[in-house]
Every structure is written in C-alpha cells, then in structure tokens.
C-alpha cells in the first residue's frame, strides 16, 4: 500500500499507509493524525483538510482539482501558499507513493 508522510507545523512527521483510491484526508483522520480535521468528510464544504503539498511533490500532485476546491481554498484559516490543497481531493494513485504533505498550525 502506498505511504503518505504527514508533517505537522512543528516538523514532526508520521508516515501511514493509505489505500489506492482513498484520499489523503482519510489517511490522516482514520489514523488519528492531528492536524487534518476533515469535518465534512470530503464534501468540499468545510475547508478543514488544508495541507501544503511538499514542494518536491507539487508537480506530481497538481493544483486544485475543481473550481469548487479553488473557491473553498479561499476560506482556509491558515496562510494560503502555492502548494495549498484540500487533501480530501487528493486521491491516492501509485504515482503518489511516498507523498509528503505539511499541515498548517490550525484548520479553523
């Protein structure tokens, strides 16, 4: 199973396995990783699964996958940066094995 590493705002990293086809928000929530809230469960309505895709991965992951994600990113609580994504919208593919995402200090 592909691995994702979540790095919190103080630099602590946790690596977990996330099933192919599942999303990066679930990987955090189901494994008890604080820092990703994902309160709406992936419905593009809460903006609480904000992450910064590591710069080495930005190209592979790509930008927002829909206009709705782009609009909702405007509502995130922490600073918006070039690698900002709502990670419920990042679906695991073989190409993302080893993905690193950084988590903001707060989600709301």
């Amino acid at each position, binding site marked *: 199973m592909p691995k994702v590493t979540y790095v919190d705002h103080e630099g602590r990293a946790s690596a977990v396995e996330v099933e192919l086809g599942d999303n990066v928000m*679930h990987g955090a929530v189901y494994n008890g990783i604080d820092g990703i809230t994902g*309160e709406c469960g992936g419905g593009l*309505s809460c903006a609480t699964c904000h992450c910064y895709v590591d710069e080495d991965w930005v190209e592979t992951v790509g930008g927002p996958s829909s206009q709705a994600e782009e609009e*909702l990113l405007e509502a995130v609580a922490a600073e918006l940066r070039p690698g900002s994504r709502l990670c419920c919208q990042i679906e695991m593919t073989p190409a993302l094995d080893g993905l690193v995402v950084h988590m903001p200090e707060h989600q709301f």
Partner: protein
Amino acid sequence: MPIDAAHPVPPNLPRHVGMDQIPDHVPADLVRQSGLTVGPEFLAAPHDFMAALHHKQPPIYYDVSPMGNMWHLTKHEDALFGLRHPDIFSNEGATPFPRDPNDYFYFIPIEIDPPHHRKYRNIVDPVFSPKGVLKLEELIRRRSNDLIDAIEAKAAAGGTCEFTEDFGRPLPVSVFLDIMGLPQAMRDTFVAWAMELLHSNDRAIMGQAMAKITTYLKDAIAEKKAAPDDGVVSLIAHAEPDGVPLSDKEIFGFVCFLFIGGLDTVFATLNNIWLWLAQNPEQRQEIIDRPEDIDRIVEELLRRWSVTFSGRVLDQDFEMRGVQMKKGDRVTFILPACNFDPEVFPDPMTVDFDRPRKTILAFTVGVHSCMGGHLARLEVKIALQEWLKRVPNFDLQPGTRIEYRPGGVIGPEAVPLVW
C-alpha cells in the same frame, strides 16, 4: 467530561420552560419569546422568519418557549466557532428526544464528544463517504423513476400529485431502508413514527413513539446479529473497533440515532425545494440549462433550504459578544439563519447558483457534522435530474395554501402539484 457509552446514565441537566424559569444570570433585555418552530409567524414562512432574525433580534438572545428555554445564536461566525469547540459547547445531553430513564442510552455518535466520537464515525464513514454513496447512484435513479412512473400513472387516471407523499417522502425513506438493510414494507410505519417523534411537539406522544421505535429496532438488531448481511444495522452490530465488540447499548444507540437522523431531513429538504421550483419557473429552467453545474446548484439550494438546528449544552461558563452564558445553559444554533447571514451571503434570500462557495451550515460543522450529508446531496441531485427530465414544467395547484409542520425539521405539510 468523557462518558462511558457502554454504561449510559441520564444527564442531570436542568430543563427550564417558561417565563418563570429564566436563570438569574440572563439579562432581562436579552429575553425573547421569538416563536421559533411554534409561533404563527414562523409557521407561515419559516425561512423568511429565520432570515428576519438578523434585523429583528440581537445575534444572541435568550428564547423562552414551551419547548424549553435556551440561547439562540444566529451569526454564521458564531456557529462555526461554537460547533467547532465541543469542549465548550457539548453535545452530551443536548439531544431533545425523550428516553426511558430506567433503560437509558446515548444517541451515537451525536451525543459522544471527542475523543470517543471518532471510534464510532470510523465504522460507518466509508459507507457514507462521497465515494461510498456513489454505489447507490443507480438505485436512487431507479427508485426516483419508479416513483415518477407511479405519479404519471395516477395523473393519467385523473388523479393529482401531492409531492410530499408521492415523492418527497418515499424516496429518501426507501433509500435509507435499503442502506440499513431494513424491509421496505416498513416504510410508511417508519415515517409515521418519525412524524410523532419530530413533529408532535408533545412530549407524551414523543415518548410513546420512542417506545415503539425501541421495540422494533431491538428486534431488528437481534436478527442481524444472528444473520449478518451487508446493511448498516448489521455492520454496526458486528463492529469491533480496536478489537472490542460494541455493547448492546452502543449498538442500539447508534442504530436508533441513524433512524432519527436519516428519515425526515432529506424528506423536508426535497419538499422545500419542490415548493420553490413550482413557484420559480425561470430558475427551474436555469437548472435544466446548466447540467454541468448541478453540484453547485445543489449546494446553493441546500443553503437556501436548510431544515434543522444544532443544540448544545454549555460545559463551562462562556462569554460571546459580551453575553455571559453559564455552564448548563442550553444553546441552539439556528443553522438556516446562519445560512442567511448577510455578512457572509450577501442578498441571502436570492437563490444564486453563481455564489462563491463558502461553508454552509445545512449539515452543521465540527466533529458532529452530518454523516449523511453526502447521501443527502446525491439524493437531491438525482431527484432534480430525474424529475426535471420527465416533468420540466409544473405549478402549485391553484388555491393552495402552504402550511408548515411545527417541530425540529422544517418543511411544508403538503405540496400539491399540477402540470
């Protein structure tokens, strides 16, 4: 305070009802009898009533009502804050359905605050995730078309369509029963029980309904325990989070809560939307003309036609906007009013499918966000697509006077349609 869901005890929280039971710390100038959910002005046009709260009432006021006295909060910002701080605004004891004190149980997961809450959500979230509910798409389309077939047959035979009974009610209830693994033959009985519990506004009738629901669900759980299937009742009955099976109290409280949450809300949402569609032919046509925008259309309709509230109990003294609230006070976030907050949604009563996406409160926010939200979105979307494909033009029956149901889920009593 963490609670033990396997050994539930009734909360010892004071219930205040009426003008002579206003706690001393509530300033007299914040006391209102707003009439929310029960007054004639509310029942005549509930969404207009809730939008008007923004200019008629302060953003936080103390409402005195036959259903119980509590703080009402109407600002979008305050709801986001309160609902995202379960340590301050607790769900324990905040659910208003009566239970037998000698056989008490918690509604799971809504009455369980973090950290235990996630354990329960993880059991069912995959079923109700955006991807999980997509498996139901064909089934929902088929059920929608079956219902429209029946309506057309009835119309051809000279009958008329009453939307709430012919479509709004049977669609979500049938889908829910399928997901849960419960028999379709129980559909109308389930609806009747839910009506008594949610709309009677009478604690005695609510208690009787709860007793009937309890008996039925306990039998259903026993059956699923003996003979597992792929429905959600069975999934919960056989769940073993961290290797530990759920207790009987937990299983019952979980299934019972899904019953209450799942039956009535989509029903009311569809009824509200179809009433609006019947009266707004131009925007109905806009929906037909913009098939690629269906998701944002659904989101805007859910903002405009939210149907329920979030209740909490203060777990500590807390001050907001200069208002001092005390531990034990009950609080209701008026979610539809929050969706009409003009500071967040300018010109809030206008349905505008091109509104920039913002956090809507139709499904609340925070850890207790509605787990059925994705299912609800999918049902509304498919219902719109299938109905408008077959019945693009329709009107309210001339002379119809719309009446709303009192209670915690807001929707019109009947929506007779002609075309």
